[in-house]
């Protein structure tokens, strides 16, 4: 460019000048194209992520079920104590009644593998709930076991050689016959939301994780919301500017950037090791998460307080309000929408946090949801981690479905935050 300037009178239509200009404009376009490429890559990767999750996860939202009639033989179940009957045999007899030509222990076992392993307990629960069924029949719709669920959903191809799939040719024939009898259905999988965890993919659900996450977030909110607001009010409205308050400020900024796993180490050493709080409890999880969300809440609260114009404070002070009254009666209510928005976003982050919860043991295998904040529990992200580690094929779909549920919760929380911001936040 420099020599162009020194040349004095320039002929702009000169071929060299034109070529130079074309080159510069081409460079401009190249940068623009590079930018578009970068954005396309980022958007494309997000797209691939979501498509692959939905692609593997959507099938877990339906579940193959089999409707069967179980004759409750009074010889196998004692009316005095219906819980102790031989329900294994009842289930086996029910299946054998449908396929009278199946004989031999091994074949009968293979036949019963079509049903979920817990069928006998479901029959038992039905009989215990209504002992008058003894001697009659119970019609139940039970989940098919994982391999047959996969077969029905087309995940296991019938063309694969028999040795390479988990269902034998004979089992497929039986399954097709059940299908021909209209016993196979594919309803919405409510169990995904209302069952607790299980070793069997067809029975595993998220209820324990959802309840655990709820308790942990509740504890986290109850600790970090009031503490964060109080700290922010002090630092923003009352604190003198000196080395102490500077130290606190630097501290909060650095805490916000400490890796989450370090908070897990803190929880393990202090809350579990020193205070002796119970392992895997949502109380401890919530306390660790609250320490992580605290800096976020303090930072957003300070921003919201700063956004309230000084005229409000001066007006209230001029009317004779004390400094505390100014803050409590005027500034804080006006800053509340901003604080709430930031808090919800902080809670959404806490909901997705996994690593610190692993360290305090919230990745236990539990088959019932927690009853309180001191019971052992899992959380949604740790449940996803457990399922992602499970070898059974059915858990791949469950994991994706669990992730979709988690993302659903996060989207709802963020939508509420955006709604609050647009509805309540005022500009001065």
């Amino acid at each position, binding site marked *: 460019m420099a020599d162009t300037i020194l040349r004095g009178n320039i002929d702009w239509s000169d071929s060299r000048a034109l070529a130079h200009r074309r080159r*510069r404009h081409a460079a401009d376009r190249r*940068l623009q194209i590079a*930018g578009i490429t*970068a954005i396309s890559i*980022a958007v494309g990767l997000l797209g691939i992520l979501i498509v692959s999750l939905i692609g593997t996860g959507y099938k877990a939202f339906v579940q193959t079920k089999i409707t069967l009639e179980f004759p409750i033989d009074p010889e196998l179940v004692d009316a005095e104590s219906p819980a102790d009957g031989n329900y294994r045999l009842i289930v086996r007899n029910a299946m054998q009644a449908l396929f009278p030509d199946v004989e031999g222990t091994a074949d009968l076992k293979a036949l019963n593998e079509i049903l979920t392993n817990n069928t006998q307990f479901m029959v038992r629960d039905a009989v215990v709930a209504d002992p008058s069924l003894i001697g009659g029949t119970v019609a139940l719709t039970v989940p098919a076991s994982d391999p047959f669920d996969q077969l029905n959903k087309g995940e296991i191809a019938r063309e694969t050689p028999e040795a390479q799939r988990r269902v034998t040719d004979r089992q497929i024939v039986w399954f097709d016959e059940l299908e021909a009898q209209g016993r196979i259905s594919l309803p919405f999988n409510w169990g995904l939301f209302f069952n607790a965890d299980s070793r069997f993919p067809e029975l595993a659900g998220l209820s324990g994780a959802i309840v655990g996450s709820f308790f942990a977030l509740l504890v986290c909110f109850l600790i970090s919301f009031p503490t964060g607001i*109080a700290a922010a009010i002090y630092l923003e409205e009352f604190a003198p500017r000196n080395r102490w308050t500077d130290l*606190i400020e630097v501290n909060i900024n650095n805490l916000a950037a*400490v890796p989450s796993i*370090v908070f897990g180490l803190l929880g393990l050493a202090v809350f579990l090791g020193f205070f002796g709080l119970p392992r895997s409890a949502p109380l401890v999880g919530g306390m660790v998460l609250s320490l992580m969300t605290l800096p976020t809440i303090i930072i957003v609260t300070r921003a919201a307080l700063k956004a309230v114009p000084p005229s409000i404070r001066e007006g209230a002070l001029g009317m004779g309000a004390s400094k505390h009254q100014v803050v409590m009666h005027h500034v804080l209510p006006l800053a509340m929408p901003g604080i709430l928005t930031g808090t919800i976003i902080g809670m959404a982050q806490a909901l997705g946090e996994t690593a610190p919860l692993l360290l305090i*043991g919230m990745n236990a295998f539990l088959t019932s949801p927690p009853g309180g904040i001191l019971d052992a529990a899992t959380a949604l992200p740790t449940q996803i981690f457990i399922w992602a580690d499970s070898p059974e094929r059915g858990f791949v779909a469950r994991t994706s479905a669990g992730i979709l549920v988690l993302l659903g919760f996060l989207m709802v929380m963020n939508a509420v935050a955006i709604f609050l911001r647009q509805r309540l936040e005022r500009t001065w």
Partner: protein
Amino acid sequence: MAGYVILLIVAMSLIAYFVGRSSGLKFERAGRGSTHSRPGYHGAFVAVWVGIPALVLVLLWLFLQGPVVDRLLIASLPDTMTAGASRAQIDLYLSEIQNVVAGRLFSEPTPEIVAAAENFERWNIIARWAMLVVVAALMVVALPLARTRLAPRFRARNNVERVMSALMIFCSLVAIVTTLGIVVSLLFESFRFFDKVPLSEFLFGTSWEPQIPLRDDQVAGLGAFGAIPVFTGTLLIASIAMLVATPIGLLTAVYLVEYADNRVRRIVKPIMEMLAGIPTVVYGFFAVLTVAPAVRDFGSGIGISVSPNAALVAGGVMGIMIIPFISSLSDDAIKAVPRSMRDGSLAMGATRSETMIRVLLPAALPGIMGGILLAASRAIGETMIVVMAAGLIATLTFNPLDSVTTVTVQIVTLLIGDTEFDNPKTLAAFALGLVLFIVTLALNVLALSIVRKYREKYE
């Protein structure tokens, strides 16, 4: 029980509030204009003096009850058991007693233990009821005491405001206490680790095999704690992540600031926020489910064998996670360059790309560098992606197609399902955590100071 006690405190504080407020109302009605504080402050004054001491007492009680009961239990054990017993042996007795109380019987307990277990249960029940009674008594005494101080000229508001200020200062100290807690707990456990393993071996050793034998006859590694391969693995994965994220994030920011119109910005910004808001466990599963098989298939397609948990996979996916971080920080940095510089450059006839590359980016460089450092500290401390997608075995390699392990992976695998705090295996996790904390802290302090200096330059 503790929950009920806290409910009781809340209820009593409410009652105290209304008692105090009614006094305040009486003063107000009696002498118009001569009362100092509004009735609400009289109420709050009484409530504060009923609620806060009770709450402090409950917390102290809950904290001290366990150790006191344990001490009583040890004293109640016959001398034949405790005489000359070591600390560990007594701890063993205590955990046995607790197991008996919880009904977890592994072997037939001795009669002494059974008796102690009964004592334990009885004392705990007594302690819980005693707490309820003492707390209730405290509140019942405090209420009239606080109420007698109320008078028309009593400065209830100033009193309440002082208490509130103290509470607010206490809350802002929580951040300091948290940092102190992190530092002290990491240092404490690390010192115990360096008691068993010399610091020089940890920092400069090149063999990391924390699987120490649990029994004497077990065949296992001897337990080598040289963390160099773990550090290099962390660096390798974080570098790959930065190599993926920096160009994409920076170019995204450049395009959004200089070329994009509002419509594009309105679409791209939320997408970047979505990328930033996705939990890391989701990225980890994405790496295992989609990226790892794709990389492996591609590798075998061109005849290269790729390890199932190649560093490339974990690093690449971590890079995706960091893109929005870099793009938003670079965006801020470029926007913070004074408009006059940009306008001047454009007025001289420079194209937009020349303005960006020769004027805006050099001016914004410190801010962008700060952003990149912050992102690097994120990459080093990121856990779930590497736990799910990277390897467990520490190999000293810089080949991105090999499997390496990271500091965070080792912390998680060393600590999951293990709460024994006395063997080097678990303590090693705290030493690694200390290194992680120091490195990320240093990166953050550096980044924040660069960003601050740079911001001051243009303000």
